[in-house]
């Protein structure tokens, strides 16, 4: 393999990896706060991609349609928490038990898929590029040619992840989230409104999915049923990274993306299965993730 091919594969891998990391960050913040995640996270991403596409076709300016789409995703996050997550607290002891949220969020995901299908049709669609002037605008670095769009996607995704990390670690909301994650009752006693913190977590999660959707539109084809794959991969990335460590999730996302790029290059038939199998093997060997410490439940 030539050096330039390797470099190109690596950049493509990093691009997809940063998308996985964005989607997985959403899973991370929701899981941290409520121990639940949106099993339709990938579908939310898909919805954002289609919204940008649709609004653009209506003649809205690109920046405006991106902003509107991301705000819509925020609203969808709010809706998700109110409809599919919070009401389940009422029946903790029934047999669906602790995992009812998997089914309710999956239910919303199905509704989202079908709605998109009704509006934009079943076939795959291309979104116009956001940053470059035409679809395949290339830049040449060290003799290797890259899609400009991909490079900018990586940079934007990294910026968003950095903002997210600041939000989690430094801001007041982030601290509130840490407290709710530690113990909701303690949080209530400290005067933190746990309900709004949980809503906030799901809104941020959906916004992250929205950003991912906006970015991914121009680099892959959009298709109403694409979401599940991204949900699965993001879940795997989050698990491999260790669900409690955002930096680990970021690294996990990059590793997964690169692994996938190379394995697709060498085996076009089953290429996308190998990273999944490797990751599952890793989960089996180290269920708490490679970058997280195992904590004992000391009572």
């Amino acid at each position: 393999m030539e050096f330039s091919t390797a470099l190109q594969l690596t950049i493509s891998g990093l691009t997809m990896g940063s998308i996985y990391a964005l989607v997985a960050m959403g899973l991370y913040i929701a899981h941290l706060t409520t121990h639940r995640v949106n099993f339709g996270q990938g579908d939310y991403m898909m919805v954002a991609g289609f919204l940008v596409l649709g609004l653009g076709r209506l003649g809205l300016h690109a920046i405006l349609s991106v902003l509107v789409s991301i705000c819509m995703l925020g609203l969808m996050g709010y809706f998700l928490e109110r409809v599919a997550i919070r009401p389940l607290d009422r029946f903790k002891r029934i047999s669906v038990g602790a995992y009812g949220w998997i089914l309710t969020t999956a239910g919303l995901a199905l509704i989202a898929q079908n709605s998109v299908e009704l509006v934009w049709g079943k076939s795959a669609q291309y979104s116009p590029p956001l940053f470059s002037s035409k679809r395949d605008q290339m830049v040449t670095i060290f003799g290797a040619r890259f899609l400009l769009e991909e490079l900018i996607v990586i940079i934007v995704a990294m910026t968003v992840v950095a903002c997210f990390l600041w939000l989690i670690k430094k801001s007041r909301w982030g601290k509130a989230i840490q407290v709710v994650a530690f113990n909701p009752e303690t949080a209530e006693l400290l005067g933190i409104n746990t309900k709004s913190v949980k809503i906030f977590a799901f809104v941020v999660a959906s916004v992250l999915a929205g950003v991912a959707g906006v970015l991914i539109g121009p680099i892959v084809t959009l298709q109403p049923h694409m979401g599940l794959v991204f949900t699965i991969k993001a879940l795997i990335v989050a698990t491999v990274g260790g669900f409690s460590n955002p930096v680990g999730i970021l690294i996990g996302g990059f590793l997964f993306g690169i692994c996938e790029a190379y394995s697709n290059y060498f085996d076009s038939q089953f290429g996308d299965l190998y990273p999944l199998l490797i990751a599952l093997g890793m989960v089996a060997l180290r269920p708490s993730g490679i970058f997280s410490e195992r904590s004992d439940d000391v009572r």
Partner: protein
Amino acid sequence: MFARDALSGTRAPWLVYLAGFLACLLLPYAGFSGFVVHQLQTFCYTAIAVIGLNLLLGFSGQMSLGHAGFFAIGAYGSAITSLKLNWPIYLSIPFGTALSFFAGALVGVFALRTRGLYLAMTTLAFGFIVDIAAQRWVDLTGGTMGLMLIPQVGGSSMSSASFNYLALCLVCLLLVQMAADFISETASGRSLRALRESEIFAASVGLNVPIWRAATFAFGSACAGLAGSLFAHQSGFIGSDAFTVRLSVAMLIAAVIGGLGTRSGPLLGTAILLVIVETIAGQEKFGLIIYGLILLFVLLIFPEGAAGAIGRLSSKFASGAKSIVYNVTKLGLPFNQFNGLQLEVKGLVKKYHGVTAVDSVSFKVKAGSIHGLIGPNGAGKSTVINVIAGVYRHDGGSVILGDHDLGFKGTAQRASLGLARTFQNLQLIQAITVAENVMLGFKPRWSLARTFFDWISLKGCERADFEDALSVLQFLGIADTAKKLPGEISFGHRKLVELARAIAQQPVVLLLDEPIAGLNTAEAKKIAEVVRQLKSLGVTILLVEHNMEFVMSLCDEVSVLHYGRLIATGTPAEIQANAEVIAAYLGSKGSTDD
């Protein structure tokens, strides 16, 4: 909660199954149209898969989002062996089922280390991988174009062939339903519920948690595999489009809509699912929206499902449901001799992330004596108990029961050696009655075959265990709570139930972790009396407790921990006079700690 327990039934199960079997043989003569027969076949194999899913999710609480994968493995296993290797159907279907069983066991091994969200993710990914493989491994599976001319069950004509196949499907369904009923109505059903609510608890009554979880997973997968095999031979064609995640979701919908954790739920749910599928057949455009809305509707508004709703209605109309009243015939405990052993802790060390919680602690609990373990908060008492019980692995030293070093044996193994415990934070199984909680402690009385025979002939396979549980409860003075759920009785009684469960394990050593914390004086006196009686029956008891009066009046010997170190061991009188102990509790002059 809605499951019928094996005690209250009045009809012999075998009659029901025999009637079902006769119906299976007669149904082909009912003169149904080809369409109805096809639907009935579909109902049978779908129900088989849903029964497995219900056992997995409803009883053992393990989520599988990849059941379509096991279904596909069964289908391809049976289709390919019969098509390409010319195996007869009666061989290929069991083969497909077995293949899924092993796939399930394999995923179950993953499942051992993962819980909840992770398990859901693992199974989702598994289903996805199988789906992709089925699509792209065209040489083997035919991909979306599928495999055609898969051998089918023969018959003298087209319609008699499909009737024969219906009979086969029905018999399979009957057998699976019977197996699931047997599992859920006997001790194994209790164990699964215990496993779902608290694994630490399940292990502490001697259940080998990993094996149970993997076995449930394998059983659930085998059901899906059998269903898939039957599907493959139904119309002689399978294509990879049939095995997407949508199938997994449909099966989950059937399980949830019918009522998770109930016997009739899977059958009802499958029937409802098929009606829905038929109704929306013309509305393919809105199919997913309808599925999604059903999921939300059922989970948010009707979480007990159809079986739960029916159960509630029927109990409203037939409030005087027959239940056999049991009298306590045996006075005292079902076992009158405990062979208490000596428990020795030697140089025990336990560290949490470098913090040494227990530092080379050694003491001996003499056979048949009561030994107290005391110390200020954070002294390491609970850690010692948990290490002895096998919940935590120690970092040094050893725990010796009798003359047997326990090494790194797990909780379940220790429990089966006779090491029973109670918990500081009560661990009772909320979904089953008090008596059943106690029954969890008993070891299996008879072989599986004998239990099955008793169950199917309604000899009351549970009766002996129930009576013994009742007499243990009677021994503690709370026999009247036997039929209640743990959530319905007072905190003091719940503590006694925990003790009752530990006694049911017929322990050689009993570990009591703060048995009277949170109790009033009368209740504490009751516990003290029970502990004394147990001692006189020969049980060795290690007791952790903060209440000094309780400890000093009961114990033969007392050990004192302070900051993870043993600072004194001796008779209560010696301990009360020990200057270091007094300093640890009250602080000494010039002491800087606290």
